[in-house]
């Protein structure tokens, strides 16, 4: 089936497509999502979405105007997101884990006319007045929901086109300010069909639970629209640590868990204290960061589930490379999701041979329109209908794709391309290590780079020169000598980007500081 904006009807509104579609398929009384002790049916969602569309229009939010949504995963988020699209406007979700500085930048950069947030956040922000006309609050004297209750639900869907902007998602990028990724109305249809239905096999009896929140492209698909496409339910969670997540999983008994590597590691770490009991769970998935094989194996041993890993990007909205349930190759990203063409290219843009490392190029119908107001960066990554993600990959003879690091993570040691992940994987098997990040170091005495490890320790272990020696001996016994770290630096915590990936540039700075001492 070809799903592209060219093949969809000329008048196409993605909010109406999913919401009216779910009702016409007889899902009106089915639960669309769980939030704390409450449940919301598809009929209720439709009612509130139409009310939100009416209210936002009354407040002067016109077609193509932006509304910034700075909220955790809540019903208000969902009603405002779909309500804005229903009205032809463009929602811009903002992750509440971003820095205040970045949040203010995003609100200004997207020229939001309305901001929906909480009192607590509103008090923390210094907001410009050039574009922003209204701030709606979910709490306080006139909460957003009570305003919706007083609004009519007569709004008809805006007659938008499948190829026009529907929503933006900001992506952190490894340097500089976040970039607004502009997606079309058609993008969600593609991801919901290609990954949600074809790979995950989502169906109306599923309940999904996502660790990634909705302002992330991964979380948006897992919680908001992939379930809606089939009449399934999702859980809106405010879990803050592994114990919260386990409590949620026990309470809601989801059938599909969309996880991230660090969560699987945390749940495993507390297994003795809080063993998981999820008899209805049928599938565990992972994305956002490379899943170490060690965690994959330990999860299988502990709970009997394989973790089906994939990779996606905000620019392509969701996952385009994925393992297949029941046929996982641990440590690999799997192979292309139907509808996506994935190639590995050399520096000249030609496909590399099997087993060689190159740059990932992906062609798919969920590709963004571009980065808002960043033409140079857009043109740097988009090649016709394709995008070069900046990830370095190799493909084996069986067609499995293996992540070898970001383009700027990969380094040469002893004249050979070396992936930090391969070394981290080995070190993580050491009994004392909780988290590991590998970076290359070059100092004045040695022109050739060598490997350095930054590590955090599990509870009960203390940093010492004896332990450092032990870890180095452990690595040497399992790795080619040039890949074994020459130095181990103990940290309380590894620096991470807002999306949870290891911030290798920050570690490089740390290394410079260590050397300066």
């Amino acid at each position, binding site marked *: 089936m070809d799903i592209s904006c060219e093949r969809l009807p000329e008048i196409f509104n993605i909010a109406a497509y999913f919401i009216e579609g779910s009702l016409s398929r007889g899902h009106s009384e089915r639960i669309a999502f769980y939030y704390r002790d409450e449940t919301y049916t598809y009929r209720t969602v439709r009612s509130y979405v139409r009310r939100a569309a009416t209210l936002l229009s009354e407040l002067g939010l016109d077609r193509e105007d932006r509304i910034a949504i700075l909220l955790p995963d809540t019903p208000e988020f969902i009603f405002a997101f779909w309500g804005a699209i229903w009205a032809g406007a463009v929602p811009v979700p903002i992750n509440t884990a971003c820095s205040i500085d970045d949040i203010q930048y995003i609100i200004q950069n997207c020229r939001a006319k309305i901001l929906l947030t909480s009192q607590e956040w509103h008090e923390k922000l210094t907001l410009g007045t050039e574009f922003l006309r209204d701030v709606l609050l979910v709490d306080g004297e006139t909460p957003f929901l009570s305003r919706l209750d007083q609004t009519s639900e007569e709004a008809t869907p805006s007659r938008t086109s499948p190829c026009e902007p529907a929503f933006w998602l900001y992506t952190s990028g490894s340097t500089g300010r976040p970039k607004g990724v502009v997606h079309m109305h058609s993008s969600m249809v593609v991801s919901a069909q290609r990954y949600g239905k074809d790979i995950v096999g989502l169906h109306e009896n599923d309940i999904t639970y996502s660790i990634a929140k909705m302002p992330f492209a991964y979380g948006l698909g897992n919680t908001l629209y992939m379930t809606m496409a089939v009449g399934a339910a999702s859980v809106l969670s*405010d*879990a*803050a*640590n*592994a*114990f*919260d997540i*386990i*409590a949620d999983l026990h309470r809601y008994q989801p059938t599909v868990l969309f996880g991230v590597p660090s969560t699987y590691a*945390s749940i495993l*770490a*507390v297994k*003795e*204290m*809080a063993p998981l009991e999820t008899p209805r769970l049928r599938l565990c998935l992972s994305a956002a960061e490379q899943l170490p094989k060690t965690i994959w194996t330990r999860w299988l041993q502990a709970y009997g589930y394989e973790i089906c890993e994939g990779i996606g990007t905000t620019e392509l909205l969701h996952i385009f490379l994925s393992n297949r349930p029941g046929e996982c190759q641990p440590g690999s990203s799997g192979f292309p999701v139907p509808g996506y063409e994935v190639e590995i290219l050399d520096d000249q843009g030609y496909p590399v041979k099997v087993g060689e490392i190159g740059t990932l190029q992906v062609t798919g119908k969920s590709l963004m329109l571009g980065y808002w107001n960043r033409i140079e960066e857009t043109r740097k990554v988009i090649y016709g209908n394709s995008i070069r993600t900046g990830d370095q990959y190799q493909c084996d003879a069986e067609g499995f794709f293996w992540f070898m690091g970001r383009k700027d993570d990969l380094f040469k040691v002893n004249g050979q391309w070396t992936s930090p992940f391969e070394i981290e994987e080995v070190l993580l098997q050491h009994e004392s290590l909780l988290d590991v990040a590998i970076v290359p170091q070059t100092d004045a005495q040695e022109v050739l780079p060598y490997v350095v490890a930054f590590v955090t320790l599990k*509870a*009960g272990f203390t940093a010492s020169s004896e332990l450092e020696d032990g870890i180095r001996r452990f690595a040497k016994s399992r790795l080619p000598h040039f890949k074994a770290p020459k130095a181990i630096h103990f940290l*309380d*915590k590894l620096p991470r980007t807002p999306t949870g990936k290891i911030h290798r540039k920050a570690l490089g700075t740390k290394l410079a500081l260590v050397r300066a001492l």
Partner: protein
Amino acid sequence: MVMDTLKAILLELGIEESDVTETALLRKDLQLDSTETVQIALELKRRLGVNVKLEARQDMTLGHICDLVVQAMALNPA
């Protein structure tokens, strides 16, 4: 005794001794993140043999954690 153990764990996490009070909140006052709250629970289990699942949705004072530990010890005396 419980507070002394909790204090020792917090000091190892880099918290200043003067900040460790019964009314101090884990997140708001001590700035502990989700990983660190789990780490405290694991350390309490290791040192005192108690299962105290420190959920992080609601911020918790150190005094409250001590109460939870005492209750857990009473249920499962060593």
